[in-house]
């Protein structure tokens, strides 16, 4: 169990008062207390570790000068150090022209997010058992020559208070299971990763053995993989691959990036940025998502479903308190510190839980409407190297198949895909109805053009 919320609230109040006494005209004190358990097993090697994470982030404004200071630990001396350091450092800084708005208690009064008690103090033998039981599926597939499983359970509570008297708090608990599997056949390695998350014990929320059996089938060594001999004009992404690529869009929706003209979507609200088939919504109030919260990490309430792109037209950016004030827009509750309430980072304007609207097709139907293309499944490698300024990307699909006249005709050697994500958005031609949930959102399979593919 992490520290009780009452103790955290009392410490926040003391921190805010200390900052005021030290000379801060505005202060925000954020305290978190979190704990995680990690079990990892590969071959006959296992690591099990348990760790806590707790700390304080003090953000102050002193004579118009702003600073953020973070310390681990929740002792009074940790909070004192952060307060004193913030105020003294702020006095040395130039005045900032960036506005700052602190929410009031009236803005934050929703009930706390429910958590599963099993995740707040899990038994080590249960964690070990979930991993062992899951990996047992591979006993029936001895040709899989490498598999590794990891179970991570985490829980935490945060409290944020400020000089307006706000004292908002929320908590989180979730569990994730990942498994990497690999098979070698015909000189080619075929790898993929299964990732499952839930707000309750992941083995109860998901059929882990079933998911692993599907993955095993996907990497089953097939006939000789062939190189891609001629250009293709379309790519069909399964939901996993589509999400990996489309995640690269999310920083472009951040209000602070738009304000600073760093985002490609700056001053584009109301403009066509994607094909009509494409709709994207952010929903931090979705209770089935592990990114569900009632307050963001500045104490600003979640605004529920927020359309970002509707039928190809840019509708909104996401805002934290500062970016909203600067843009003359309403805050949307998107001042987040990485994973909700856990990371030792100042809040950033961040999309919380993005959902690509599903279409009407099955993955099979997307393939059937593809004249000549490539079907990529099971995950991409290197998708994160995308340049978020230009949108250029280059990544590899280890599990790819040639599609000709609507039929999968051959497995391919790993295919390298290159393109520009902003151009690709305009080339989204159809979406599947197979919406799959991921840690930061949900996405169906996608058929799109405007890429190069090569082996």
């Amino acid at each position, binding site marked *: 169990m992490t520290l009780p919320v009452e103790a955290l609230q009392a410490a926040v109040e003391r921190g805010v008062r200390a900052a005021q006494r030290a000379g801060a005209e505005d202060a925000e004190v954020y305290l978190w207390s979190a704990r995680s358990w990690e079990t990892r097993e590969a071959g006959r090697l296992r690591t099990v570790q348990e760790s806590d994470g707790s700390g304080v982030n003090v953000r102050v404004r002193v004579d118009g000068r702003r600073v953020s200071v973070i310390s681990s630990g929740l002792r009074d001396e940790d909070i004192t150090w952060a307060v004193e350091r913030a105020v003294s450092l702020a006095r040395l800084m130039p005045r900032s022209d960036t506005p700052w708005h602190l929410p009031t208690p009236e803005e934050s009064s929703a009930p706390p997010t429910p958590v599963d008690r099993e995740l707040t103090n899990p038994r080590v033998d249960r964690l070990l058992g979930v991993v062992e039981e899951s990996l047992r599926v591979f006993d029936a597939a001895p040709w899989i020559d490498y598999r590794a499983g990891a179970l991570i359970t985490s829980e935490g509570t945060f409290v944020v208070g400020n000089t307006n008297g706000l004292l908002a708090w929320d908590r989180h608990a979730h569990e994730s299971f990942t498994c990497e599997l690999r098979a070698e056949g015909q000189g080619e390695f075929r790898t993929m990763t299964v990732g499952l998350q839930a707000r309750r014990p992941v083995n109860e929320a998901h059929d882990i053995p079933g998911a692993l059996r599907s993955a095993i089938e996907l990497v089953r060594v097939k006939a000789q993989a062939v190189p891609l001999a001629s250009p293709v004009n379309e790519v069909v992404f399964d939901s996993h691959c589509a999400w990996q690529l489309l995640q690269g869009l999310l920083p472009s929706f951040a209000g602070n990036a738009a304000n600073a003209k760093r985002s490609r979507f700056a001053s584009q609200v109301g403009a066509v940025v994607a094909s009509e088939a494409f709709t994207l919504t952010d929903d931090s109030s979705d209770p089935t998502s592990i990114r569900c919260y009632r307050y963001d990490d500045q104490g600003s309430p979640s605004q529920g479903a927020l359309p970002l792109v509707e039928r190809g037209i840019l509708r909104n950016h996401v805002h934290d308190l500062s970016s909203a004030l600067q843009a003359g827009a309403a805050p949307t509750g998107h001042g987040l510190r990485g994973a909700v309430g856990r990371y030792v980072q100042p809040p950033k304007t961040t999309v919380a839980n993005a959902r690509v609207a599903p279409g009407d097709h099955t993955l099979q139907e997307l393939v059937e409407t593809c004249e000549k293309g490539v079907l990529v499944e099971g995950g991409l490698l290197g998708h994160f190297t995308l340049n978020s300024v230009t949108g250029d990307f280059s990544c590899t699909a280890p599990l790819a198949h040639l599609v000709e006249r609507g039929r999968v005709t051959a497995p391919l050697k790993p295919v390298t895909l290159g393109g520009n994500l902003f151009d690709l958005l305009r080339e989204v031609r159809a979406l599947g109805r197979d919406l799959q949930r991921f840690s930061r959102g949900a996405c169906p399979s996608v058929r799109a053009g405007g890429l*190069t593919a090569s082996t």
Partner: protein
Amino acid sequence: MSVLPPSRPPVAPDPEPETLAGLADRVRSAVARRADCFEVRAEASESIEYTWSRGGLQGAGTSRLSGVAVRLWVKGRSGFASCHTTDAAAIERMIDQALSIAGASASSEASSFPHAPLPARKIRYRPSIHGNPFEASPEEVGSLLGRAEGAALAVNPTLQVRALLAASRRHVVYADSGGRETDSETLLATLLTHAIHRNASRPGDGQDWIAGERGLRDFGADGPERIGKHAAVTAIESSTAIAAPAGRHRVLCDNALSGVLAHESFGHLTEYDLIAMRWSRLHGCLGQRFASEAVSVVDAPIVEASPRDGIRVPVDEEGVEGRPIRVLDKGVLRHWMHARGSAQLEGHEPTGNGRAMNARWSPIVRMRNTYFEPGDLTVEEALETMRDGVYLIGGRGGAPSAGGEFMFTSVRGYLVKGGRIDAPLRATAISGNIFDFLKGVRGVTRDFQVSATNFGGCGKWGQSYLAVGMGGPHVLVEDAQLGGVA
């Protein structure tokens, strides 16, 4: 003196200031006699970051992290736990949890590496810098950053420019049940400029940095101007860059990209935990030849040729002094990178590669500064030897696989025609198999650069991002697959 009112009880009472050595001693006393053997690690780290744009400081932030960790062994089974609060109750709970993990693990066939006894020894390290960034005033920092921004805007005043200074320092005190004690402080600082060019039909960006064990006076007399100008020039150039040609080409990888290849596609394959798991295809391959005699790959705790560059790992988080190892020696696989326990398991000498990101984590096998050893060519000679091909610059990261397949993305590049640099190219993917790649190395240059920054690093098993040094010489390859971009 506390500024908090004394009337309310503290959240986690621990009023006595305590040194890391004192904390480690306290945990050592608490765990003694409860386990067959143990390691205790107490640490404190601090980081600071300044952001500058539009002629002034736009923000500053600092953070510190402290904590303690214990790893213990009972009947050959290990348990690890850590905590950030260090009162007696929290430490008791941490030890109980580590014991409970070791006990629960006993029912499984899977296991961790054994505890490896090492001779009792005391090891101490402190960095040597000029102008401690943690003691510098914002004016001093602003002066450096302003010079970098000014140099970029002098190239083109319409650029969007940001200059950053980031620094981190880490103090680790380690003690084990065999009497080994270490006390090391390390520091890494980065001065970086990023420029975006939007006044073009297509946006472009560029960045450059100086980093390493450096104080404010260790960035060079014209260092800020150099990186500012270079970021600006590359931003403008990248807005006119064309797509790299897809397909197979002769390729010259610059220092940064060759470092990515050495680290990602070959280094990870030689980390012994990945060998023990059978993840790496190099299992059982010690002594085998993988490249010509011109190719050697080194992992070292310090970059001897330029000690301020890269990172310094004088001692790892298992109390082992770092030593350089030639993983690939003249084309032949000679060594694994080892954690303390894995070295014992194999009967090898420990190498000092047991690293943990911070007190929260258990040490695992990690790289330090990994690079190809330099050769004899100049860059001009390498381009002349290549004649026609592609010159790839910078590494944006990518993905290696256990079988040696890799896919990395360059930051930019140039077409090379007739041995001369031609049109600028956008980022492109280079992919292939590291073993084919090594066989195809046609030359290695004698210029040599290794770099580690505060932005990014190496991620492994959730420990992201650990600072590592990457770089080396230019490497000329006969035949490589480029992905191109649309």
